[in-house]
């Protein structure tokens, strides 16, 4: 138990270092930038240059980079995460809602993708070289070469043409007047397009990895032995082989969070889901610097959460890891 705690402590320290690294990197990049939020105002004849300079001073944009970083860290510790110029409020209040929406979308998509990928991958591995396996690998190749952007647009087109589902946003305009079940249904209807896009986009990679690690395990002598004992096929695959193949898959789970977040950004923008993606895009256009940094930090935290979760799962599932990491 004590060993486990030390391991988790080390992971936490690593996570904090990662967050610091990401924020320093963001600030360094920002120092390369020639413009700022208030530069657009300079073009406006009704705003005097003095006002712009005063605003810059008020938000601390005239200070040198290290000082600005220091102030930002202080504001993070206060729980404000900097200040949004465009929304005129602390970044954190903006981020919380958006991050919750993104989290809802990505968690659902991830759960669904794994639920589909594991059985399909196991099945393809068990039928290795047969037509079922070839069909699976052909369809994963095909899916892999359709970018998320195209997937999302295509699905949106289908949905709009068939009038099957509401399009755009997270809830309908009548949401507030609905009962609890009505609200759930409305939310679910809005979730379908973005979730299906994300699932389709992440499936091929997951299926390929499940198949590959299962094939490796199916060659192992203990599987031959189990087969020799007359254990049924399904039981053999899911009870014996799958746990042995789980290790690389759990690591993949940690890595796949990054891809999922990137995909989610795109899908959110296209389907109008009010998550971190549209917020980041708007902030890019209006040069709302602290919002950009905030969103990058939020996505980094999701990543860290994902890999932390993967580590804990590994710790639980694989006894070898507990030995390797004292």
């Amino acid at each position, binding site marked *: 138990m004590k060993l486990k705690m030390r391991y988790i402590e080390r992971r936490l320290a690593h996570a904090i270092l990662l967050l610091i690294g990401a924020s320093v990197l963001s600030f360094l990049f920002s120092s390369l930038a020639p413009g700022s939020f208030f530069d657009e105002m300079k073009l406006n004849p009704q705003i005097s240059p003095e006002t712009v300079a005063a605003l810059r001073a008020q938000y601390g944009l005239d200070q040198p980079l290290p000082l600005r970083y220091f102030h930002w860290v202080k504001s993070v510790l206060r729980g404000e995460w900097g200040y949004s110029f465009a929304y005129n409020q602390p970044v954190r209040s903006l981020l919380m809602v958006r991050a919750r929406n993104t989290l809802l979308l990505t968690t659902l998509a991830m759960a669904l993708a794994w639920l589909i990928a594991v059985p399909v991958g196991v099945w393809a591995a068990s039928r290795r070289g047969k037509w079922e396996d070839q069909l699976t690998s052909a369809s994963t190749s095909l899916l892999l070469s359709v970018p998320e952007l*195209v997937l999302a*647009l295509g699905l949106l087109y289908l949905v709009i043409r068939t009038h099957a589902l509401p399009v755009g946003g997270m809830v309908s305009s009548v949401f507030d007047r609905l009962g609890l079940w009505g609200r759930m249904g409305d939310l679910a209807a809005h979730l379908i397009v973005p979730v299906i896009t994300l699932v389709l986009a992440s499936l091929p990679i997951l299926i390929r990895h499940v198949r590959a690690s299962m094939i490796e395990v199916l060659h192992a002598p203990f599987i031959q032995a189990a087969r020799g004992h007359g254990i049924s096929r399904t039981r053999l695959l899911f009870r014996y082989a799958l746990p042995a193949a789980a290790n690389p898959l759990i690591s993949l789970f940690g890595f796949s969070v990054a891809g999922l977040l990137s995909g989610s950004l795109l899908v959110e923008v*296209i389907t109008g889901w009010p998550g971190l993606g549209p917020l980041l895009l708007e902030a890019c256009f209006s040069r709302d610097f602290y919002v950009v940094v905030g969103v990058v930090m939020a*996505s980094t935290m999701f990543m860290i959460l994902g890999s932390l979760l993967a580590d804990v799962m590994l710790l639980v599932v694989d006894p070898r890891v507990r030995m390797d990491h004292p």
Partner: protein
Amino acid sequence: MTSNRKIAAAVIFLLALHLAILLAGFVAPYPPAAQNRDFPYVPPTRLHFVDARGHLHVRPFIYQYVARPDSLYEYTEARDREYPVHFFVQGSEYKIAGWLSSHTHLFGVDAPAQIFLAGTDNYGRDQFSRILFGGQISLAAGLLATAISLLLGVCVGCLSGFYGGWIDESAMRLAELFLVLPWLYVLLAVRAFLPLHLSPAQTFLLLVAVIGTIGWARPARLVRGIVLSAKSRKYVTASRGFGASDAYILRRHVLPHTYGTLLTQAAVLVPQYVVAEVTLSFFGLGLSEPMPSWGNLLANLQQYNVLVSYWWMFAPAIALVLVSFGYLIVANAFHQRLQSGSI
């Protein structure tokens, strides 16, 4: 099909695609910016083989599209006159790769008819031509950014793996950071800090530089691993004993081991970076009109009525999928060969 045949087929397919895009001026019937304000959103021209009298034509022909009276953007075929499709016709002047100028186009029809294989956009510009010309921009962005990533990867990976110590330690920590962050977030964040309004050429170079630089980490890690294993070989020790310099050893004995991996990485990265350019331009953060790129061609679909009514505006997506598919097959084949140790 044997794996060799498969690779050959995929490579030939990719080469043909690249060649068609390189020779866009010749393959495309019209210049990318030529507008027909009277013909916005014309659907793709249909090729006919059987005429109104039921005669079969060997040479395909088309009918001219005319706007349906009192309708908005609806067209019918004027069946009174047939326009056969001719090959190697004379048309507007173009330049191939910036220097070879010519008037000959692969195909075309007689005036006043026009052939729009993939329909037209809101200015009545021929989408087929724009996809080909846009491909030049998108593919060039992908290829150049890949070159930057691989170059950075080789430099950092070699230094890191060959010299080790604090260089290795700090470079690999930084690489970890880049690998762990979701690439699209980083891409947008970096783009956010760079100027929005630039000349097209500047935007293009900036985009390529940003996309290529962000992707340095994976190739660097891979190269480092290969360098680490290569530098402990006996022939490296031997050559050092003969007084070879570090540069010589790297060039002669270490780098050749990385070629297979670099080739595979290139095949993986090019489509990714093409998609990166397309994504940024789609969002309006990349190349903008009038320069065509697959991203800003697809950006038309952001308008609700275009997405719903004009399905042929999806045509650039097909080009994008074809390129991704070709590279994917090649990358898979390279990867398999690499693992069996024959590159």
